Protein backbone atom coordinates (compact mmCIF):
# COMPACT_ATOMS: atom_id res chain seq x y z
CA UNK A 1 0.00 0.00 0.00
CA UNK A 2 2.77 2.42 0.94
CA UNK A 3 4.67 1.41 -2.16
CA UNK A 4 1.76 2.34 -4.43
CA UNK A 5 1.43 5.73 -2.75
CA UNK A 6 5.18 6.28 -2.94
CA UNK A 7 5.35 5.52 -6.65
CA UNK A 8 2.34 7.67 -7.51
CA UNK A 9 3.71 10.56 -5.48
CA UNK A 10 7.22 10.30 -6.86
CA UNK A 11 6.16 10.09 -10.50
CA UNK A 12 3.88 13.10 -10.05
CA UNK A 13 6.56 15.06 -8.19
CA UNK A 14 9.22 14.41 -10.81
CA UNK A 15 6.85 15.28 -13.66
CA UNK A 16 5.76 18.52 -11.99
CA UNK A 17 9.30 19.57 -11.26
CA UNK A 18 10.31 18.85 -14.85
CA UNK A 19 7.48 21.14 -15.95
CA UNK A 20 8.84 23.72 -13.50
CA UNK A 21 12.31 23.84 -14.99
CA UNK A 22 11.30 23.37 -18.63
CA UNK A 23 8.29 25.66 -18.95
CA UNK A 24 8.62 28.98 -20.74
CA UNK A 25 5.75 30.49 -18.80
CA UNK A 26 6.49 31.71 -15.28
CA UNK A 27 2.92 31.14 -14.10
CA UNK A 28 2.91 27.48 -15.23
CA UNK A 29 6.27 27.01 -13.64
CA UNK A 30 5.17 28.52 -10.34
CA UNK A 31 1.93 26.59 -10.06
CA UNK A 32 3.58 23.27 -10.90
CA UNK A 33 6.21 24.02 -8.26
CA UNK A 34 3.44 24.64 -5.71
CA UNK A 35 1.73 21.36 -6.63
CA UNK A 36 5.04 19.52 -6.28
CA UNK A 37 5.51 20.97 -2.79
CA UNK A 38 2.07 19.72 -1.75
CA UNK A 39 2.88 16.22 -3.01
CA UNK A 40 6.24 16.23 -1.19
CA UNK A 41 4.34 16.72 2.06
CA UNK A 42 2.53 13.50 1.10
CA UNK A 43 5.92 11.77 1.07
CA UNK A 44 6.60 13.10 4.55
CA UNK A 45 3.28 11.70 5.77
CA UNK A 46 4.17 8.29 4.35
CA UNK A 47 7.48 8.46 6.21
CA UNK A 48 5.66 9.09 9.49
CA UNK A 49 7.05 12.62 9.82
CA UNK A 50 3.62 14.17 10.42
CA UNK A 51 4.87 17.45 11.84
CA UNK A 52 7.30 17.97 8.99
CA UNK A 53 4.53 17.31 6.45
CA UNK A 54 2.29 19.89 8.10
CA UNK A 55 5.13 22.42 8.22
CA UNK A 56 5.86 21.74 4.55
CA UNK A 57 2.24 22.42 3.66
CA UNK A 58 2.03 25.59 5.72
CA UNK A 59 5.42 27.12 5.04
CA UNK A 60 6.28 25.97 1.52
CA UNK A 61 2.97 25.71 -0.27
CA UNK A 62 1.44 28.42 1.87
CA UNK A 63 3.94 31.09 2.70
CA UNK A 64 6.71 30.71 0.14
CA UNK A 65 4.50 30.18 -2.89
CA UNK A 66 2.24 33.03 -1.76
CA UNK A 67 5.34 35.20 -1.53
CA UNK A 68 6.34 34.23 -5.06
CA UNK A 69 2.83 34.92 -6.32
CA UNK A 70 2.99 38.28 -4.57
CA UNK A 71 6.35 39.08 -6.09
CA UNK A 72 4.92 38.10 -9.47
CA UNK A 73 2.83 41.26 -9.33
CA UNK A 74 6.02 43.27 -9.72
CA UNK A 75 7.22 41.33 -12.72
CA UNK A 76 5.63 40.97 -16.10
CA UNK A 77 4.35 37.42 -15.75
CA UNK A 78 2.30 37.24 -18.91
CA UNK A 79 5.31 37.64 -21.17
CA UNK A 80 7.00 34.39 -22.19
CA UNK A 81 10.51 33.95 -20.90
CA UNK A 82 12.90 34.34 -23.76
CA UNK A 83 16.36 33.05 -23.17
CA UNK A 84 19.33 32.00 -25.15
CA UNK A 85 20.26 28.43 -24.36
CA UNK A 86 23.83 27.36 -24.55
CA UNK A 87 24.79 23.79 -25.34
CA UNK A 88 22.35 21.36 -23.79
CA UNK A 89 24.91 18.56 -24.05
CA UNK A 90 27.01 20.26 -21.37
CA UNK A 91 23.97 20.59 -19.12
CA UNK A 92 23.08 16.92 -19.45
CA UNK A 93 26.67 15.81 -18.92
CA UNK A 94 27.15 17.97 -15.82
CA UNK A 95 23.85 17.09 -14.20
CA UNK A 96 24.19 13.40 -15.14
CA UNK A 97 27.63 13.21 -13.57
CA UNK A 98 26.28 14.91 -10.46
CA UNK A 99 23.42 12.41 -10.33
CA UNK A 100 25.86 9.47 -10.35
CA UNK A 101 27.99 11.06 -7.63
CA UNK A 102 24.88 11.80 -5.55
CA UNK A 103 23.62 8.23 -5.77
CA UNK A 104 27.01 6.96 -4.62
CA UNK A 105 27.10 9.45 -1.75
CA UNK A 106 23.55 8.67 -0.68
CA UNK A 107 24.08 4.93 -0.96
CA UNK A 108 27.12 5.09 1.32
CA UNK A 109 25.19 5.37 4.64
CA UNK A 110 22.98 2.42 3.76
CA UNK A 111 26.04 0.28 3.12
CA UNK A 112 27.73 1.44 6.30
CA UNK A 113 26.82 -0.64 9.34
CA UNK A 114 28.05 1.42 12.25
CA UNK A 115 25.38 4.12 12.15
CA UNK A 116 23.70 4.68 15.49
CA UNK A 117 20.75 6.97 16.12
CA UNK A 118 21.77 10.14 17.92
CA UNK A 119 18.41 11.38 19.18
CA UNK A 120 15.85 8.66 19.83
CA UNK A 121 12.19 9.52 19.76
CA UNK A 122 10.33 9.03 23.02
CA UNK A 123 8.47 5.74 22.95
CA UNK A 124 4.71 5.74 22.66
CA UNK A 125 4.07 9.39 21.77
CA UNK A 126 3.00 11.02 18.54
CA UNK A 127 5.50 12.48 16.12
CA UNK A 128 4.70 16.16 16.88
CA UNK A 129 5.03 15.46 20.62
CA UNK A 130 8.41 13.77 20.15
CA UNK A 131 9.62 16.60 17.88
CA UNK A 132 8.57 19.16 20.45
CA UNK A 133 10.48 17.37 23.18
CA UNK A 134 13.66 17.23 21.09
CA UNK A 135 13.30 20.72 19.65
CA UNK A 136 12.97 22.44 23.01
CA UNK A 137 15.73 20.51 24.75
CA UNK A 138 18.56 19.48 22.48
CA UNK A 139 17.98 21.91 19.62
CA UNK A 140 16.85 24.93 21.62
CA UNK A 141 19.73 27.24 20.65
CA UNK A 142 19.48 26.54 16.88
CA UNK A 143 15.76 27.16 17.22
CA UNK A 144 16.38 30.58 18.78
CA UNK A 145 19.00 31.41 16.17
CA UNK A 146 16.55 30.46 13.42
CA UNK A 147 13.98 32.78 15.00
CA UNK A 148 16.46 35.68 14.99
CA UNK A 149 17.37 34.84 11.38
CA UNK A 150 13.73 34.97 10.34
CA UNK A 151 13.39 38.36 12.03
CA UNK A 152 16.46 39.66 10.17
CA UNK A 153 15.08 38.31 6.89
CA UNK A 154 11.72 39.97 7.54
CA UNK A 155 13.32 43.36 8.19
CA UNK A 156 15.59 42.96 5.15
CA UNK A 157 12.64 42.01 2.94
CA UNK A 158 10.59 45.00 4.08
CA UNK A 159 13.46 47.44 3.58
CA UNK A 160 14.52 46.04 0.19
CA UNK A 161 11.03 45.82 -1.29
CA UNK A 162 9.77 49.15 0.04
CA UNK A 163 12.41 51.32 -1.62
CA UNK A 164 10.76 53.67 -4.11
CA UNK A 165 7.43 52.10 -3.14
CA UNK A 166 5.79 55.55 -3.38
CA UNK A 167 6.38 55.48 -7.13
CA UNK A 168 4.47 53.06 -9.31
CA UNK A 169 6.51 50.67 -11.41
CA UNK A 170 4.92 51.92 -14.62
CA UNK A 171 6.11 55.43 -13.82
CA UNK A 172 9.67 54.26 -13.44
CA UNK A 173 11.16 54.37 -16.89
CA UNK A 174 11.70 50.68 -17.62
CA UNK A 175 15.15 49.77 -18.81
CA UNK A 176 16.47 53.19 -18.01
CA UNK A 177 20.10 53.75 -17.43
CA UNK A 178 20.43 54.62 -13.73
CA UNK A 179 22.70 57.59 -14.53
CA UNK A 180 20.22 59.30 -16.84
CA UNK A 181 17.41 58.56 -14.43
CA UNK A 182 19.30 60.40 -11.72
CA UNK A 183 19.83 63.39 -14.02
CA UNK A 184 16.17 63.44 -14.90
CA UNK A 185 15.27 63.57 -11.23
CA UNK A 186 17.61 66.51 -10.69
Amino acid at each position, binding site marked *: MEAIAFYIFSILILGLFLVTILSKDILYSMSS*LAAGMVLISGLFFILGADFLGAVQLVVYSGA*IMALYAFGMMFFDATRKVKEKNSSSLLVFLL*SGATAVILVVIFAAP*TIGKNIKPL*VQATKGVDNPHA*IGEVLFTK*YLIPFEVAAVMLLVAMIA*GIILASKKMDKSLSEVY*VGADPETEKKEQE
Partner: protein
Amino acid sequence: MTLTLTHYLVLSAIMFTIGLAGVIRRKNLLMLFFATEIMLNAANVAFAAISAYINDLSGQMFALFIIAIAASEVAVGLGLLILIYKKYGTLDLDKLSVMRG
Protein backbone atom coordinates in the same frame (compact mmCIF):
# COMPACT_ATOMS: atom_id res chain seq x y z
CA MET B 1 7.30 -5.14 -2.48
CA THR B 2 8.51 -3.11 0.44
CA LEU B 3 9.96 0.34 0.37
CA THR B 4 13.56 0.71 1.42
CA LEU B 5 15.66 3.72 2.26
CA THR B 6 17.31 3.51 -1.16
CA HIS B 7 14.00 4.26 -2.90
CA TYR B 8 13.70 7.57 -1.12
CA LEU B 9 17.37 8.45 -1.59
CA VAL B 10 17.23 7.76 -5.32
CA LEU B 11 14.07 9.88 -5.60
CA SER B 12 15.81 12.66 -3.71
CA ALA B 13 18.89 12.40 -5.94
CA ILE B 14 16.74 12.63 -9.09
CA MET B 15 14.93 15.66 -7.66
CA PHE B 16 18.24 17.32 -6.82
CA THR B 17 19.48 16.65 -10.34
CA ILE B 18 16.36 18.21 -11.84
CA GLY B 19 16.96 21.28 -9.71
CA LEU B 20 20.61 21.41 -10.72
CA ALA B 21 19.77 21.08 -14.42
CA GLY B 22 17.35 23.97 -13.94
CA VAL B 23 20.03 26.12 -12.32
CA ILE B 24 22.47 25.39 -15.14
CA ARG B 25 19.98 25.72 -17.98
CA ARG B 26 17.72 28.64 -17.13
CA LYS B 27 18.74 32.24 -17.63
CA ASN B 28 15.85 33.92 -15.81
CA LEU B 29 16.58 34.85 -12.20
CA LEU B 30 13.11 33.85 -10.99
CA MET B 31 13.53 30.42 -12.59
CA LEU B 32 16.85 30.05 -10.77
CA PHE B 33 15.00 30.66 -7.51
CA PHE B 34 12.45 27.96 -8.37
CA ALA B 35 15.24 25.49 -9.17
CA THR B 36 16.90 26.30 -5.86
CA GLU B 37 13.64 25.50 -4.06
CA ILE B 38 13.56 22.12 -5.79
CA MET B 39 17.08 21.36 -4.61
CA LEU B 40 16.24 22.35 -1.03
CA ASN B 41 13.20 20.08 -1.14
CA ALA B 42 15.31 17.18 -2.37
CA ALA B 43 17.58 17.63 0.64
CA ASN B 44 14.52 17.70 2.90
CA VAL B 45 13.20 14.41 1.52
CA ALA B 46 16.58 12.75 2.04
CA PHE B 47 16.78 14.04 5.62
CA ALA B 48 13.27 12.88 6.48
CA ALA B 49 13.79 9.44 4.91
CA ILE B 50 17.05 8.75 6.72
CA SER B 51 15.52 10.03 9.94
CA ALA B 52 12.58 7.65 9.57
CA TYR B 53 14.62 4.61 8.65
CA ILE B 54 17.30 4.76 11.34
CA ASN B 55 14.76 5.93 13.90
CA ASP B 56 16.49 9.17 14.73
CA LEU B 57 14.82 12.55 15.09
CA SER B 58 17.73 14.82 14.22
CA GLY B 59 17.10 14.43 10.50
CA GLN B 60 13.62 15.89 10.90
CA MET B 61 15.08 18.71 13.00
CA PHE B 62 17.51 19.60 10.24
CA ALA B 63 14.75 19.48 7.65
CA LEU B 64 12.80 21.91 9.84
CA PHE B 65 15.74 24.31 9.98
CA ILE B 66 16.21 24.00 6.22
CA ILE B 67 12.59 25.08 5.76
CA ALA B 68 13.19 28.09 8.02
CA ILE B 69 16.32 29.02 6.06
CA ALA B 70 14.45 28.63 2.75
CA ALA B 71 11.72 30.96 3.98
CA SER B 72 14.17 33.70 4.91
CA GLU B 73 16.13 33.17 1.69
CA VAL B 74 12.98 33.72 -0.34
CA ALA B 75 12.09 36.87 1.61
CA VAL B 76 15.48 38.50 1.08
CA GLY B 77 15.94 37.17 -2.45
CA LEU B 78 12.58 38.39 -3.65
CA GLY B 79 13.32 41.85 -2.26
CA LEU B 80 16.57 41.89 -4.21
CA LEU B 81 14.79 40.67 -7.36
CA ILE B 82 12.28 43.50 -7.09
CA LEU B 83 15.14 46.00 -6.75
CA ILE B 84 16.91 44.55 -9.80
CA TYR B 85 13.70 44.63 -11.81
CA LYS B 86 13.07 48.26 -10.87
CA LYS B 87 16.61 49.20 -11.81
CA TYR B 88 17.09 47.30 -15.07
CA GLY B 89 13.60 46.31 -16.19
CA THR B 90 14.56 42.70 -16.82
CA LEU B 91 15.48 39.53 -14.96
CA ASP B 92 17.47 37.96 -17.79
CA LEU B 93 20.97 37.06 -16.68
CA ASP B 94 22.46 37.68 -20.12
CA LYS B 95 21.20 41.25 -20.11
CA LEU B 96 22.19 41.74 -16.50
CA SER B 97 25.86 40.88 -16.97
CA VAL B 98 27.41 44.31 -16.66
CA MET B 99 30.89 43.29 -15.59
CA ARG B 100 32.88 42.60 -18.70
CA GLY B 101 36.40 41.52 -17.95
